[in-house]
């Protein structure tokens, strides 16, 4: 199954990309995908995760899901 992963702010700069498509095994959970991306790109511990535009925890992933990784927010 294919998962679209988006990166924002310092994470976008670190990866050098706004988004990418990742092939995942069926039944994979969010945290497992995030851990592999942390390892690949060296993201620090302060990381926020969203799944289909809502903050995510460790949900099961499904084909076509949109995941986003980004640092703590600083708007306002």
């Amino acid at each position, binding site marked *: 199954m294919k998962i679209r992963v988006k990166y924002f702010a310092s994470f976008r700069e670190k990866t050098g990309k706004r988004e990418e498509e990742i092939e995942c095994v069926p039944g994979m959970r969010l945290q497992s995908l995030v851990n592999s991306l942390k390892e690949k790109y060296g993201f620090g511990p302060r990381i926020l995760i969203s799944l289909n535009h*809502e903050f995510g925890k460790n949900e099961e992933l499904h084909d076509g899901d949109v995941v986003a990784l980004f640092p703590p*927010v*600083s708007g306002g």
Partner: protein
Amino acid sequence: MIRITRNDFSIDIEIRNLKRKSCGALCIFVGTVRKEQGLKEIEIETYKDMAERNLLEIEKKALKQFDIKRATIIHRTGSFALGDNILFIGVSAGHRKAAFAACRYILEEIKKNVPIWKKEIFEGRERWVM
């Protein structure tokens, strides 16, 4: 009403849109770019799809939790110079207490839960605000 936009807002127009005959209080907060040593400009990046959803949710909760009539939230995105407007929050209510409380609630929720980031650009260096 919520909006994420590159364009500036008119405080007068937003106030006019918030006013109701039944409202005796109107509280607004305007966030602007603050002068800091060596700061040239700031950039604001958003995850627009998610930020719009979260702002709508904050507006909905504010209307439910506080005795207010209307709320307006506008966050700008793009590059900004010192003094530029970046955020407008406006709340109209029957009385001041609810208007102040709702305005503060909306601001604090934005700072915690909306995917928006600021980057400060200085002469020869830059940093993401954490």
